[in-house]
């Protein structure tokens, strides 16, 4: 009768199935939409290949150290962000609360971006693609005016998808098609995060690896397109003069920081499910390098396609001018081709200047088309969709592209949701007997209901606000307090010993120097530069207004005061938590020190409790 009961996990905490799942989850969290639509744009406007220099310096002194810190912290303390920071020191509990709030805010708007991606995805199954043709006007003699003045792609994005209002103060109504897509997106997120890392660990195999496959396919296809080489040369030609502009260094630092998804608490949550004896140092370096290489790898197809698009636009411009000239001068067809266009133009200009002036020809310059740089949603939903129409077999390319964007975004959402879910699980908000599925269901349902505001007509303006204010400044502040908290309050000697116990080697000089001095200093400089830049001019946005004189250019508007107040609130609220909680505990400590029966706070170290 030797009934040996099964040995339970030491503390009942779920674990990763294998190391690869953990690394893949961290990579998936870090690699997101920004790698595809922000990094290539920054490369382009900041001197091509030269941008890589400040980028790698920032990675070395800011990205990798902070990443290692977070992973080591999570692995050592085996708790989510709230519990971890409370354990390090009660005065630093605000850091955990701050990063939890930021995770919530970012999850809300990030999934709405995925809603747009899903909308485009389900519209890609039509022939012809709905963003390739303009709808007709009422009497069927021409195209819809708004569509005709801008382009069909712009019309589909601004009118058919967003149904955007000309001003942020005009909220408009909820768009039912976006609500359907939003519900689907949150259902998918719920499906994948239903049991925490048990389910995301399986889903990540698909969502983290699939984008690389699609990027490779686009790479091969992109390189065969005409004009691709022009785009690539334009992207990568280094222009070292741009390095003199401090803005370039700031952009590199912020790109590294935001791209690695630091200070969200998600990385701490991921690492907390690791066994204690795990080499977090190697993991951190691996994740950071893979993230950067992915950014570089994604730039190549993006810029091949952009070069192709610029070349096609250039050829269209030339063709239109050629038709006008041929009509005007009654020349035989095919007498003027693209190749001899410039010689013809100079000849005609010298012989008949008035006629040429009367034609009002647009000047066609390839550089000008290449210079039209776009980042963010504009790149994916306007520029890229336009390029896809021009490719043969557009439906397949569109479907592939949007599934890739969806996977990229979804794997980042897993990290965000984990940053919200794990601390709540530890707080025991729901009774222990209730299943985990209930908590994740509640989180997804509440987030869906709040995110309905983003499906209003003015929703995309609000998403821009959230992106600029909630997802930027608070992260810098929280990261700064993370580093200084661990180094100066928890004391780096203690932390070094903990890391040594976990990795089996002593912390070398690089980590000591960066953690102690370089990273906090760099974060402080970046934060101050960032805030100074924002405060230089009143916060403004560009609105899509069909009644604007300069239409199809977007109208520059200033935020009304109540919106500005919301911006400040979004940025300040997570940051305020840090000093507030510290103050609260200080006051509590003062009250307690007057009480003789007070117990001094427990000294904690990683080797001890695993509760």
């Amino acid at each position, binding site marked *: 009768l030797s009934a040996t*009961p099964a040995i339970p996990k030491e503390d009942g905490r779920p674990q990763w199935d294998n190391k690869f799942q953990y690394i893949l989850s961290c990579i998936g969290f870090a690699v997101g939409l920004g790698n595809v639509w922000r990094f290539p744009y920054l490369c382009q406007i900041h001197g091509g290949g030269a941008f890589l220099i400040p980028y790698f310096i920032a990675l070395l002194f800011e990205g990798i150290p902070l990443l290692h810190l977070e992973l080591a912290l999570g692995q050592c303390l085996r708790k989510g962000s709230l519990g971890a920071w409370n354990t390090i020191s009660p005065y630093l509990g605000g850091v955990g609360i701050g990063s939890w709030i930021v995770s919530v805010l970012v999850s809300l708007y990030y999934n709405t971006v995925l809603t747009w991606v899903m909308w485009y995805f*389900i519209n890609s199954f039509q022939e012809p693609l709905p963003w390739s043709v303009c709808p007709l006007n009422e009497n069927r003699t021409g195209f819809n005016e708004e569509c005709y003045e801008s382009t069909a792609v712009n019309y589909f994005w601004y009118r058919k998808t967003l149904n955007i209002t000309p001003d942020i103060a005009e909220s408009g109504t909820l768009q039912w098609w976006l609500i359907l897509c939003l519900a689907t997106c949150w*259902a998918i997120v719920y499906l994948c995060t*239903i049991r925490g890392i048990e*389910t995301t660990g399986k889903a990540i195999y698909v969502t983290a690896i699939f984008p690389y496959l699609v990027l490779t396919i686009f790479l091969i296809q992109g390189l065969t397109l005409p004009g691709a080489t022009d785009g690539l040369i334009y992207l990568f030609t280094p222009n070292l003069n741009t390095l003199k502009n401090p803005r370039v260094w700031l952009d590199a630092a912020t790109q590294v920081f935001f791209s690695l998804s630091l200070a969200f608490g998600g990385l701490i949550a991921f690492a907390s499910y690791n066994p204690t004896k795990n080499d977090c140092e190697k993991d951190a370096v691996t994740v950071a390098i893979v993230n950067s290489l992915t950014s570089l790898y994604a730039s190549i197809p993006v810029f091949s396609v952009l070069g192709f698009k610029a070349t096609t636009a250039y050829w269209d411009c030339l063709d239109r001018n050629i038709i006008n000239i041929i009509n005007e001068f*009654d*020349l035989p067809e095919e007498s003027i081709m693209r190749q001899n266009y410039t010689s013809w133009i100079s000849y005609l200009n010298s012989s008949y200047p008035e006629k040429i002036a009367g034609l009002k020809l647009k000047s066609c310059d390839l550089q000008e088309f290449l210079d039209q740089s776009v980042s963010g949603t504009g790149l994916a939903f306007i520029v890229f969709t336009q390029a896809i129409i021009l490719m043969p077999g557009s439906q397949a390319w569109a479907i592939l592209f949007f599934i890739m964007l969806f996977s990229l975004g979804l794997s980042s959402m897993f990290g965000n949701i984990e940053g919200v879910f794990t601390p709540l699980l530890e707080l025991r908000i729901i009774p222990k007997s209730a299943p985990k*599925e209930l908590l994740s269901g509640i989180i997804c349902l509440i987030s869906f209901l709040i995110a309905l505001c983003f499906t209003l007509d003015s929703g995309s303006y609000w998403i821009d606000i959230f992106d600029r204010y909630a997802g930027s400044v608070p992260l810098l502040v929280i990261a700064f307090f993370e580093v200084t908290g661990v180094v100066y309050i928890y004391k780096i000697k203690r932390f070094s010993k903990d890391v040594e116990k976990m990795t089996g080697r002593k912390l070398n000089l690089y980590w000591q120097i960066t953690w102690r001095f370089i990273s906090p200093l760099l974060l402080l400089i970046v934060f101050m530069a960032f805030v100074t830049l924002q405060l230089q001019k009143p916060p403004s946005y560009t609105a899509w207004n069909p009644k604007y004189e300069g239409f199809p250019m977007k109208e520059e508007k200033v935020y009304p005061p109540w919106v500005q107040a919301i911006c400040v609130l979004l940025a300040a609220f997570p940051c305020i938590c840090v000093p507030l909680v510290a103050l609260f505990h200080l006051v509590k400590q003062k009250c307690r020190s007057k009480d003789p029966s007070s117990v001094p706070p427990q000294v904690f170290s990683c080797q001890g409790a695993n509760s």
Partner: protein
Amino acid sequence: YAWDANEEYLFKAMVAFAMRRYSSKSTTQISNVLLCNVTDRVSFWFVVTDSSKNVTTVPGSEVEAAIRMNRNRINSAFLLSDKTLQFLKITSTLSPPVEPSTPVWLIVFGVVLCLVVAGIIFLVVSGIQKHKKKNKDSTERENLEEKVEVTLENGIPCEALDLKAGHINGVFAADDERFTSL
């Protein structure tokens, strides 16, 4: 194909045909259509005369309307399209894109949603089943442990033994006299 006198003849015939269909007068002849200013890149002016009245030209609006009505036939005769065969000042009536009764995107959306909901239901149900099984397993184990907790001493449960002061073994105790007294 090259533009020659035969093609011009065909064009005149098409215009005459259009005029006949439009005004339902069968009096327009090919000779009523006059071309002028023909250039090499194939562009020309044309007028339609009315032979019933005294060699006057048919008003332009009538000709425009006739051509607009039969544009498709004229294009097909020359194997061209609205873009390649241009009538200046006649805007073409555009046909709207074909739209199926249910928008395609709704169908795709329905498919995606069904898959996701099926997945969620499957996971929730399997979670509940695992929970029940774990509960059943843990109650079974509790029963097992209860039996095991009864400690055994040489095969006899301890409670049955009277462990107060030990037992006197009757075999040895009976023979008091055998021991030598000190």
